[in-house]
């Protein structure tokens, strides 16, 4: 079957017009007979338009789904917990991953935006289980505060999770807590840039 036959009579007629309209070399005329697409019929145009609209809709929904999946995977919405208290000596609370309720969540403490310690939320907190927030007792954590200078400070606790094969993310647990460190001989001896001197726990 020739290309002309397969393309249909309209295309063949069109090709003949093309060939006739080109008065250049025979080579150009040959190219024009076969290479140019034919004009769309009304029905074909409608179908192509519908396909374009459908494709755009599917692609839009696809990108939206990707965005939701990305957020869900990287900013895990299943962490629950509380930073119950924070003062000059300790910060404590509980954390549980509802997607993996038997796992112990690793938590990091940040004071004034600086890393101040890491711990595993595996201490006994019977009240958390009693409140129906966990399946077992062991989801509590306690941090010992590093030496801090006197004044107002802010503590935040983050749950650590692997968001990809090569990436970890920190998800804040509950809200930040503000606390004051009283002026004592010990606290006054601490440098304002205390985090520079603090060793990794």
């Amino acid at each position, binding site marked *: 079957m020739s*290309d002309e036959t*397969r*393309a*249909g009579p*309209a*295309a063949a007629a069109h090709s003949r017009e*093309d060939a006739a*309209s*080109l008065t*250049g*070399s025979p*080579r*150009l005329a040959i*190219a024009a007979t*076969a*290479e*140019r*697409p*034919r*004009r*769309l019929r009304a029905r*074909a*145009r409608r*179908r*192509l*338009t519908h*396909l*374009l609209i459908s*494709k*755009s809709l*599917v*692609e839009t929904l*696809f*990108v939206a789904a*990707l965005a939701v*999946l*990305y957020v869900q995977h990287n900013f895990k919405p299943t962490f629950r917990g509380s930073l119950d208290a924070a003062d000059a000596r300790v910060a404590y609370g509980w954390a549980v991953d509802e997607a993996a309720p038997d796992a112990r969540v690793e938590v990091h403490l940040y004071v004034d935006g600086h890393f101040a310690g890491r711990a595993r939320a595996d201490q006994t907190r019977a009240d958390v289980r009693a409140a129906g927030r966990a399946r077992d007792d062991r989801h509590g954590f306690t941090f010992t505060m590093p030496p801090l200078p006197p004044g107002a400070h802010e503590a935040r606790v983050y749950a650590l999770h692997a968001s*990809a*094969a090569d*990436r970890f993310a920190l998800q804040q647990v509950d809200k930040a807590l503000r606390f004051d460190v009283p002026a004592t001989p010990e606290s006054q001896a601490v440098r304002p840039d205390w985090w520079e001197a603090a060793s990794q726990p």
Partner: protein
Amino acid sequence: MSAPDVRADANAGDAQASARVGAAERALVWCEIASVVTSALVAEWAVLALGDWHKLALAVPVGLAFALMLASHRARGETRAALGLTGRNFWRALRLLALPMLAGALLLALAGRVWFGAPFVVGQPRAGWEFFGLPVWGFVWGLVQQYALQGFINRRLQLLWGAGWRTTLTVAALFALLHLPNPWLTAATLMGGLMWAAVYQRAPNLWALALSHAVMTWVLVSTIPASALAGLRVGYKYFG
């Protein structure tokens, strides 16, 4: 083909295109081109940004783009021969490609030497590619790219403007756009796009273009250091 012949072809094409394609169809053609380019951008900038476990999701934009292109060919009665997927025009296309390819290879070798002080080392897998794997993969990947770029976008632009410099330049610019933000690859694909688009308008054969694509990719990774090519990564992946 002589230069006056080419100009005659372009002028005749322009006149036919404007006379033949009405406003509604022009809009449809633009939408088709934009839709295929958007699918490629979604694949490069959205899907690949989300990490390795999302790679299967590439099938969605790629599949949609191919579904649209195939449906469009069918609606317009375009045959394999018309697209350049048969043996017709193969040798003619190769003859037309030979000189610009040689010039491009010399330019790349010179750029590698002057810019990076790197000599041309035949077969050195500078971008992490194997010596034999690159030509084979380059041919397959080149065929896919040339089909979309020339078999679809070039042909659709010819419906609007006919054959000529405007169509050639737009095809090359779109090809370069899809290789951002990799600077060396963007520059190389702009030059390659000009060459392939111009040759396709004179001798439409995608096999010859795919062969040329594979060879030029191989020359590129043999002349420009891997650190500059960033492993041929494009889109979001370029940043790591």
